[in-house]
């Protein structure tokens, strides 16, 4: 085939895919989610430039309701809530990303191994992972966090323990079904090594679901992190953290300090919504037939 024709064809098909993406409801959903995520990422990266005050020191009177100088008001120590919410996205995103990476780094290889090798190893791993999976995620994270103590990595590990089984299950189930597909059989028949098969044939096929699970897990990880720090098991103060700020705000709720709980809460909601929309849209787009039954 003539090379230019091929290139033309390729660009045309990419164009078509894009148009289809934006015309479909799931495409719009994923796009909205992506926009939210980008805004939060920018806020986290450029917090120092955007924030009007240092989030950890007093910048005005305590308990100021939102006004022109402190658009989100101030907390009980006179710290600027807007700056704290802004910096809070750093901790939230940082811990969520590290947690999900650890979970994926543990769950994916184990899932590949378990699904590909099968046999007793598979059965034992499945049993253990299912047990962990069935345990209430937050309570598991609480237990691990209680033992490990505070700190970004410790919190991330606590959350990762909860989500590693998710990756394991998704990957393992897909691998054990792909394993029996004809093209893998064929590769084996022509003498391909196990590792080659895993990396060249199996992994590319499970990647789309990994991306979806990844973005879903980021949403959940942010929720768990907020929960842990709300319970006092998160990052040590005075580091700005949404969950901590919420529990701090709750102490003064009878004083009607609505701004102290409203803004960190809305930040969590919008960010989690961003990840949910993104993953949901992506999921429906990538696997149109699995969306209905969860």
């Amino acid at each position, binding site marked *: 085939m003539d090379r230019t024709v091929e290139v033309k064809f390729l660009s045309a098909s990419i164009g078509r895919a894009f148009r289809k993406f934006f015309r479909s409801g799931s495409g719009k959903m994923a796009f909205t989610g992506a926009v939210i995520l980008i805004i939060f990422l920018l806020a986290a990266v450029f917090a120092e430039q955007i924030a009007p005050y240092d989030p950890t020191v007093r910048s005005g009177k305590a308990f100021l309701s939102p006004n022109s100088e402190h658009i989100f008001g101030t907390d009980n120590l006179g710290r600027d809530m807007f700056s704290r919410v802004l910096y809070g996205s750093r901790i939230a995103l940082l811990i969520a990303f590290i947690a999900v990476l650890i979970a994926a780094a543990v769950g994916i290889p184990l899932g590949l191994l378990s699904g590909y090798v099968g046999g007793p190893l598979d059965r034992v791993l499945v049993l253990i992972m299912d047990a962990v999976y069935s345990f*209430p995620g*937050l309570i598991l994270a609480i237990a691990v966090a209680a033992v490990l103590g505070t700190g970004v990595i410790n919190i991330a590990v606590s959350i990762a323990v909860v989500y590693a089984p998710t990756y394991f299950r998704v990957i393992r189930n897909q691998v054990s079904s792909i394993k029996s597909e004809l093209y893998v059989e064929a590769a084996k028949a022509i003498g391909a090594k196990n590792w080659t098969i895993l990396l060249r044939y199996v992994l590319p096929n499970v990647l789309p679901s990994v991306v979806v699970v990844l973005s879903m897990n980021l949403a959940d990880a942010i929720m768990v992190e907020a929960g842990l720090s*709300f319970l006092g098991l998160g990052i040590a103060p005075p580091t700005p953290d949404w969950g901590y700020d919420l529990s701090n705000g*709750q102490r003064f709720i009878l004083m009607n300090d609505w701004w102290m*709980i409203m803004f960190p809460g809305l930040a969590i909601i919008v960010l989690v*919504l961003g990840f949910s929309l993104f993953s949901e849209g992506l999921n429906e787009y990538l696997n149109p037939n699995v*969306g*209905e039954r969860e």
Partner: protein
Amino acid sequence: MSLKTYIIARILLAVPMVLILLTVVFVIMRVIPGDPVLTLLGGKAPIEVIEAKRHELGLDKPIIVQYGEYLLNLFKGDLGKSLLTERPIIEELGDRLPATVELTIMGFIIALVIGIFWGVEAARRHDTAFDLSARVYSIFIYSVPVFWLGMVFQLVFGVWLKWLPVAGRIPPLMEPKHITGMYLFDALLTANWDSAREALRHLILPSVTLGLVISSVFVRMVRGNMVLSLSQDFVKAARARGIKERAVVYRHALKNAMVPIMTVLGLQLALLFAGAVLTETTFSWPGIGTYLIQKIRYRDFMAVQGAIVIYALIVVTLSIVVDIVNAWIDPRIRY
């Protein structure tokens, strides 16, 4: 297989699950941490005191022996003594359990009612604005932290409108006679209407908070499975027999959709308990969740371990219950 045989088989199948969960708890609580005694007593305690405490708790024995004793004691229903209060942990948890059960049951019922009605109606009106509202609701509410929703309710109904109390289970000295420990239930049983009203007033905000947050998953699951169920041949066939629409939707379609719903629900009940920990903390609800968090603050690791074990047992019990209900709904599971 009769339902009875199925139940026995299912309970036996749960044994390895329980063992694995208990092992996981043990590994987390005993193998990972450095030294619980050191953290309990602080770094400045004399070495003899620390050693004595370690010996008392059996922590100086080899880890495998500790594991054996841990399982053996659990089997005997002994969760050890609280390092702080010196009371048997099982008793302390027993005092707290009814509060958690009361809250989760109410939350579950609220979530179920919302989930079934909204989910079913959305599925019946598949691809309409109403259907869209159900999807938007479930995505949105899924993003709301349960403790934040609780605070907003406290603010609106407790602080602004002053309609409902924001914390606790009941005013002092109004506790009903102890039967189950669930105040609302006990008060109703003993016809103690004042207590019942107060118990209910305290229960409304926490249970609605929990129920709303959990309902997200319920709406989603019911809707998805009902869309599939309503498109089945037997639903059309039932309509063709002149069965009333309500019966077609609820008796035929929903009951069939319940089996996959219940299966996922079994796993989602874990979500309910995780949400309950946060809800309890938000509303100072004296259940197992607040117990767990308090004990973590006091570094009472035996009590923490006990609370986690109880959660593990609750989860396993519920998964058995879910499977049995499924087998009861759908005879095919039994055969």
